[in-house]
């Protein structure tokens, strides 16, 4: 009993802080989504489901939701596959690989703003690295500012997510692969399994836990990520990269219609909760 008391005391400061600065703001945010709160107006009225009703016929909301899901799904799926490939390369005992392993995660540690500036600089028409490179290989006729192109902007946003996170996946999967006992591979080999079969039956189950954690946190981070889009394209050109977090931010801090913004934010939470429920269902079925 005394033990329990001490343990609770130790975690209490964190719980109090999280309660005050995370859980309370969440409930407050949800509450505000049922009002017409406006930053510049004193009076706040309870408006029931009016904000949510308005969302149903708001085309920009549906477009943002669509983009958010597309970006999250394709970024996480590509990160997973390419991360596995990178981990495979990193695992090999060849000259130079150790050095490569040690520098590759640098993309993950530098500020997002810096990443965006780097890519904006490279995407400039004419003197940008990408266009100079295209010219070099004879594709100079495609010389444009890539973030300003309606068709290229969204794939570029996904590319930014890939650039930042693939090395993290690669190195994390590598760590999990190294924890698999060599004897498992030997046993598989004795049973006549080739490289592909041992990958499916030994490697993948061995790194399962890591895959679950990496995919889960990246679904959350990517879906909630506001900075890449805000800084790189601002949602443009012509709303081609508008996403939900950006829409919330604009409603709250540009139009000052906090109530409506909060309702969009609440929808984001609901989407992630639906993802969670589906995910846990599948997880449980597999465990059975």
């Amino acid at each position, binding site marked *: 009993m005394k033990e329990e008391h001490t343990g609770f005391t130790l975690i209490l400061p964190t719980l109090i*802080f999280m309660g005050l600065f995370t859980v309370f703001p969440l409930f407050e*945010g949800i509450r505000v989504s049922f009002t017409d709160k406006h930053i510049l107006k004193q009076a706040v009225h309870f408006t029931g489901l009016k904000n949510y009703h308005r969302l149903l016929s708001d085309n920009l909301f549906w477009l943002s939701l669509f983009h958010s899901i597309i970006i999250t799904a394709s970024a996480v799926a590509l990160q997973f596959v390419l991360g596995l490939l990178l981990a495979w390369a990193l695992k090999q005992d060849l000259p130079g690989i150790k050095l490569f392993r040690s520098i590759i995660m640098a993309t993950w540690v530098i500020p997002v703003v*810096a990443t965006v500036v780097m890519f904006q600089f490279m995407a400039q028409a004419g003197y940008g690295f990408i266009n*100079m490179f295209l010219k070099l290989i004879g594709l100079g006729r495609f010389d444009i500012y890539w973030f300003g192109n309606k068709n290229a902007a969204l794939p570029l946003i996904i590319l930014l997510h890939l650039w930042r996170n693939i*090395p993290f996946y690669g190195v994390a999967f590598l760590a999990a692969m190294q924890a698999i006992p060599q004897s498992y591979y030997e046993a598989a080999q004795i049973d006549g399994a080739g490289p592909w079969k041992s990958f499916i039956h030994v490697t993948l189950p061995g790194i399962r836990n890591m895959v679950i954690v990496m995919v889960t946190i990246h679904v959350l981070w990517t879906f909630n990520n*506001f900075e890449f889009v805000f800084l790189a394209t601002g949602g443009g050109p012509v709303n081609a990269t508008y996403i939900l977090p950006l829409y919330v931010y604009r409603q709250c801090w540009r139009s000052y219609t906090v109530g409506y913004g909060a309702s969009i934010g609440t929808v984001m939470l609901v989407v992630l909760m639906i993802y969670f429920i589906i995910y846990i269902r599948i997880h449980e079925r597999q465990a059975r």
Partner: protein
Amino acid sequence: MITSKKRKVLKSFAVYFIVLVSLFFFISPMLWIAYSSFRERDAIFSEEFLTPLREFTLENYKTILSVTDFPLYFFNSFKIAFFVTCVSLLFSVIGAYGLSRYRLRGKNLYIMGIFSTQMFPLVLIIIPIYLIIFKMGLLDTTLGVVLSQLILVLPFSVWMLKGYFDNLPADLDEAARIDGCNIFQTLGYVILPVSIPGIMVAAFYCFVVSWGDYLVISIVNQSQNTATLPLILQRLSASLLIRWGQVAAATVLTIVPTIILFSFVQRFLVEGLTAGAVKGE
């Protein structure tokens, strides 16, 4: 029939192909901006890859450091990231130790609860946080920024350190307690010394997240008092008459501290970051 030797050569070839493509994709953007920061304006706009050696210049750095308030922003960034790291470590070391070592009713609920806050959309909770900070009179103060940035790092930091402590043998604590150490002595003399890699990683994580944060600072910042590097970098790169040489120099100066810290923790980084994933049930 493919001989095993041929297969080995083929495999090495595939590995180095992946390495080369990765180096080009992941590393060249950083090298390109660093390279460009030493080029003159005309060279940057020349649409040529190479600059004659004698035409490299430090002018971009001199301008950014003397004409703008860049040094002030750099200092602000450092101060804020430093305090965020200290406070977060204080909370999370103690909290993670409690979660890792003590029997607690509903322990998994706490862990799940702390972790699931990662699901909360930051753009939603930042609205009430802004109002709280405003009512506390802490808008545009270092303390206000530190408090609001803590929510970015604290959950992950606790989760990470709990995973790390879980991997340490429980005998350590037992031995310390038998020797008559209280909790804080056990933590300070026994646990912390053997957890330095994990704590370094947690500290590194807190520091770089605070250093790179744009969303939170863009809302709680009002003036030069608390403006950080991401804000000035965004402003510089969004201005109409963009001076790429100076933007490149500013970008490099923003990146360099994170890379220096990264080089110190690089060896432990993944092990630490994913400690909770290996044994975090």
